[in-house]
């Protein structure tokens, strides 16, 4: 509400928005409002999450329907882009630049002066914990460091709307926790943060509000608990990459919610759990306590798809 009691516009308003790529459906007749604070966008690959975010960022145009972002049409609207911070999935850009140079270059493309850009880039890198590696070249960065740089890039110009496409990909558990904390602070400040992820429990640590997408439709909108409860009854397959998979598997198999483990190779294993929330919490603690170097934690893709198909099936039923 504004000071005079008039209702404020949501940050994003979609009314019957559809987008097709030729004969392939991107999203279909979506009508949602996204308010300030954090909103989680959840769905398997190909569910329409990226299409939705591309529409909001003005990268593509709706085929049908009306879309307003901060009260304006985002298509071909460079002035609006000053208010939007976007963290895309791809991460190969100016490979010979240092992280600091890269963020500064992108800020100068916003029209910021050299001094302001240098200062804001340094501040953004500090916020994502990249001060020590700021002057190293991008080509030498790990996946997690690249992810942090992209996040710095998205928030360096102090946007009102932050759109993050799988921002936790490649981050280790500590990095995930730090970024979750960072986004939560952004949401608390009254900015709008839209986070796409296929890991529900990470979204749950930031917000209660989610949009669940599948096959271009919004399956569920609102509280996260109901969706999570349904998913909890469905076993999860989690892919882990670490330096001691056998040892970690042995430790995890002792936990009651871990149903099975499979060693894929010398660094990779797949675990099956029926309670991802407690699994992830215990995993974080375990790797710290046991000194295990964990590179990757992700849900095995086909399993996520099957969960969402399961949800979609229930919805349609």
């Amino acid at each position, binding site marked *: 509400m504004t000071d005079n009691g008039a209702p404020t516009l949501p940050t994003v308003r979609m009314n019957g928005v559809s987008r097709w790529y030729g004969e392939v459906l991107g999203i279909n007749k979506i009508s949602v409002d996204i308010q300030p604070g954090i909103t989680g966008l959840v769905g398997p690959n190909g569910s329409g999450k990226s299409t939705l975010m591309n529409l909001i960022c003005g*990268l593509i145009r709706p085929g049908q329907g009306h879309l307003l972002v901060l009260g304006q049409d985002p298509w071909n609207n460079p002035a609006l882009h000053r208010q939007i911070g976007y963290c895309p999935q791809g991460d*190969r850009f100016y490979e010979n630049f240092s992280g600091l140079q890269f963020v500064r270059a992108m800020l100068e493309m916003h029209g910021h002066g050299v001094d302001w850009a240098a200062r804001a880039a340094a501040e953004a890198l500090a916020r994502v914990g990249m001060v020590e590696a700021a002057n190293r070249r991008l080509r030498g960065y790990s996946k997690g460091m690249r992810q942090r740089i992209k996040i710095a890039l998205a928030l360096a110009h102090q946007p009102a709307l932050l759109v993050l496409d799988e921002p936790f990909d490649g981050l280790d558990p500590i990095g995930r926790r730090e970024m979750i904390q960072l986004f939560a602070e952004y949401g608390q400040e009254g900015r709008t943060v839209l986070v796409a992820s296929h890991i529900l429990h990470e979204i749950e640590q930031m917000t209660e509000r989610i949009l669940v997408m599948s096959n271009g439709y919004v399956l569920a909108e609102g509280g996260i608990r109901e969706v999570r409860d349904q998913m909890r009854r469905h076993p999860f397959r989690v892919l882990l990459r670490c330096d001691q998979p056998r040892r970690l598997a042995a430790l995890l198999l002792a936990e009651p919610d871990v149903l099975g483990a499979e060693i894929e190779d010398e660094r990779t294993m797949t675990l099956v759990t029926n309670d991802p929330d407690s699994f992830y919490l215990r995993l974080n603690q375990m790797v710290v306590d046991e000194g295990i170097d964990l590179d990757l934690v992700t849900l095995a893709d086909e399993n996520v798809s099957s969960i969402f198909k399961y949800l979609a099936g229930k919805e349609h039923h």
Partner: protein
Amino acid sequence: MAVYDLSYQTYTGPRRGPVHRWLAIARFAWVEMLSRRVFAILFTLAWLQFIVRLALIYVLNTPLLKSMGFEALIGPLNEAISIDAAFFKSMIDWQLPFCFMFVFILGAGAISRDLAHNAIILYIVKPIGRYEYLLGKFATLFLLLLALSWLQTMALYFAQVLLAPETSAWRTEFWSQYFWLIFPITLYSVLLSASLSLLVLAFSSTARSGRYAGIAFLIYLIGAHTVIALLAELIGAIGPIQAHDWFGLSPLAIGYALGDWLFSQQAEVRPAAAWFGLALHWLVAGAILKWRLDGAARQGN
């Protein structure tokens, strides 16, 4: 209902204009280029011809050789090298191999790399439109090629103006004989730099690999010339079209023909055919770029 502290502030300070924004694309592309040793070496080598010609201008216009005891060389040197229109045109022509190298190495991957890694969206989510993005990429190459052709040739021109002895034609007949050279030097450099930049960007936008785009561009340059040579041989003259006019469709022949025309030298291809060919190439390259950039938007790239 959520309660927010609303403590955030978006930036409301001064911003620079759109030219600064898209020039930033070019500026950082050069910074990245020069950070690679191979580019830095190539860029340095691209100044060698300039240094040699500058030395020649100095030697021909000052008593250096005489003072060093090489008087016998002055006559043959003056006979062999004349600082005139052909001297400046050949300076630009001999810079073309370097221009091509930069076009292949830097230009071929300029857009294709962004398309392959979906990095184009990084630019477009900034206050930079698709066409400003393209301008930035164009400026990266165009200004670099201008530095290698126009800047160096104009520097030689002004060196000649400054060093020419009082009694030489460069001083006594400057306005009638040599002043006009500024215009062909500028136009020739601009036309070559703009055409090469535009064409290679069009090729770059059609591939997701800079290597393939570069090879395709090279094949086009050589292939088109070969095919047109055959065509000219087979078809010959038709009505008002002379046999050599067919070369107005070859990008290589267009450049040289326009250069000859601008520097008032004998050209085999008539200027009208060369201008027609140039306009056609620009139009097709522009259409390809528009189609590809709009296509990238349609596919959500």
